[in-house]
């Protein structure tokens, strides 16, 4: 059978399905940083987009793809275009990925989803990452600085080993603030504790965030209070990553003020923070707001 080696992509579709060869894997604190050769993907990708990896090989009992935001791409290396992702071994699929060795192959689909929008003017920006949610922000920082933006980063995690990219941040940003819940690195506390100061000091107009939902909500609240726009990349569990399974939906308000259950893989993963219905999320569930289009009625579904 040829499940893992079949390639599908159509010219102009903006996405490729390729067999990616792993050429480098290394530990990064609690995470694994992997580099795959993925021809055709790097040229199409922009910061904030993600890739969907099949796990376990062609006869795998784990059918669902695992989605990771793109840490970086390089269109023309020694091996051709490459894509980097950062993975935390949570379950059988991610563990399989972290146990891959050089020259192993993985079916990769990408780039997927909407990228972080970039400001037209060279305004100051703050990039906030929780845990390995920081993975796409370094590449974003580069793109922003190319446009003349002043860029600061705030990296937070439960503890030092769960931070990702502190050294890299110092290279990519004009200023870096680190927080940990236990105080093992940087300031003790949450990113939302230090964020108001950073926004005020830099006069930031945009706050970009990537990390757990709770953190993205507080980034959105802080940004609103400080008069900045929040652009957040959400983490919703996805089965396909390409828009066909309808599992990764969340309630988001559209331009005309109407709440809809939208797919975070195609309409996201980046949303304007103030458009997300954070009130619907609690305790690991997300309910459908009563005022959402097509919401269940009494006696309905």
């Amino acid at each position: 059978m040829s499940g893992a080696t079949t390639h599908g992509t159509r010219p102009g579709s903006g996405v490729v399905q390729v067999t990616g060869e792993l050429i480098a894997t290394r530990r990064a604190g609690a995470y694994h940083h992997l580099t795959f050769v993925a021809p055709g993907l790097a040229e199409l990708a922009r910061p904030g987009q993600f890739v969907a990896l099949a796990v376990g090989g062609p006869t795998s009992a784990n059918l669902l793809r695992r989605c990771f935001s793109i840490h970086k791409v390089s269109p023309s290396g020694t091996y051709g275009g490459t894509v980097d992702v950062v993975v935390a071994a949570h379950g059988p699929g991610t563990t399989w990925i972290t146990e891959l060795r050089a020259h192993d192959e993985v079916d990769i689909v990408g780039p997927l989803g909407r990228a972080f929008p970039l400001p037209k003017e060279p305004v100051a920006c703050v990039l906030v990452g929780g845990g390995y949610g920081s993975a796409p922000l370094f590449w974003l920082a580069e793109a922003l600085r190319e446009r003349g933006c002043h860029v600061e980063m705030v990296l937070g995690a439960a503890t030092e080993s769960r931070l990702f990219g502190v050294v890299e941040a110092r290279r990519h940003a004009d200023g870096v603030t680190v927080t940990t819940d236990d105080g093992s690195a940087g300031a003790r506390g949450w990113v939302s504790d230090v964020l108001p100061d950073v926004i005020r000091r830099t006069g930031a107009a945009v706050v970009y965030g990537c990390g757990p939902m709770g953190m993205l909500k507080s980034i959105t609240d802080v940004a609103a209070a400080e008069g900045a726009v929040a652009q957040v990349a959400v983490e919703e569990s996805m089965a396909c990553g390409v828009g066909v399974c309808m599992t990764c939906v969340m309630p988001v308000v559209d331009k005309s003020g109407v709440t809809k259950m939208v797919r975070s893989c195609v309409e996201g993963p980046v949303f304007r923070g103030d458009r997300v219905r954070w009130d619907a999320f609690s305790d690991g569930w997300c309910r459908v707001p009563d005022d959402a289009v097509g919401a269940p009625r009494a006696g309905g579904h």
Partner: protein
Amino acid sequence: MTATSTSTASPTTGTTPDHPPATMVDMSVDLAGRRLPSPMMTASGCAANGRELGRFFDVAELGAFVTKSVMADPRSGRGTPRMAETPSGMLNSIGLQGPGISSFVENDLAWLKKAGARTLVSIAGNTSGEFADVAATLRASDAFDAVVGVEVNISCPNVANRGLVFACDPLASAKVIALVREQLPRDVPVFAKLTPDVTDIVSVAQSCVKAGADGLTMINTLLGMVIDTDLLRPQVAGVTGGLSGPAVRPVAVRAVWQTRAAMLEGRLPHVPIIGVGGVRTGRDALELVAAGASAVQVGTATFNDPSAPVRVGRELAQLLQDKGFARLSDVVGIAHERLARA
């Protein structure tokens, strides 16, 4: 074409050609009067409504594109989490999210028509009257000529009265099918999509065919449940969900077999069966065909490989050629003949 095949610098090795030479096997299918060039279809709810998979393959290459079940009004579906991965499969509880039939015909069906896709439209309803209303709006639409059939989803487990799925009751099934049949022209075949979660699937099939179904699609997902053992609570927000994927394939093969056997025994009129359930490879598709399916849908495997619906078709054609068959139609139900001979 793929990026890898055009990139000589890539160290990637061992990939098979993306499009092996076309086989000489006649893969065409007569599906209740409609001639399709291929038996391959997407499965409802596993392919959205065309644009998404159109990025990976030409949707006109399929025998038919099967759309996500559409109801009368827009529907948000359920909250999340909506899915759980299970061994060789998944549990889903989407709750029939969709745009409603008016938006569907204007946007989705119009796109499919423009893309040249033969479309099998899946419809659903809370009541038998809603099924009929949806069928009527569909018939009246500008893009109706893209429709090669209507699949009546009387077996979705993710509805409020899930214990009372239409397809669990022969009479309720017959009522829905008869009302939909009335709304559609004779040359547009109606397929009843059945659940295997019944004591006797043949009696439900009999009831549907008697009420006017021109064919049968089997199987829908099986009702299942997963507990999150960290939180010790149901893993999906809808509590129960539909189980799909290769794990359920033997159930699909069995359902197709029993129904085809009933036709061969004269207990059920001969109507085409569309086989669906856990198909991931050409070999899997051949199982359903040999059991009696004239066409095959690829569902959950699409989440693993977005080009699966066309890849499986190529693999099936190659497999038939390797076995020396000239026509797909010669293989439909062949396992019954070979059992009889044994």
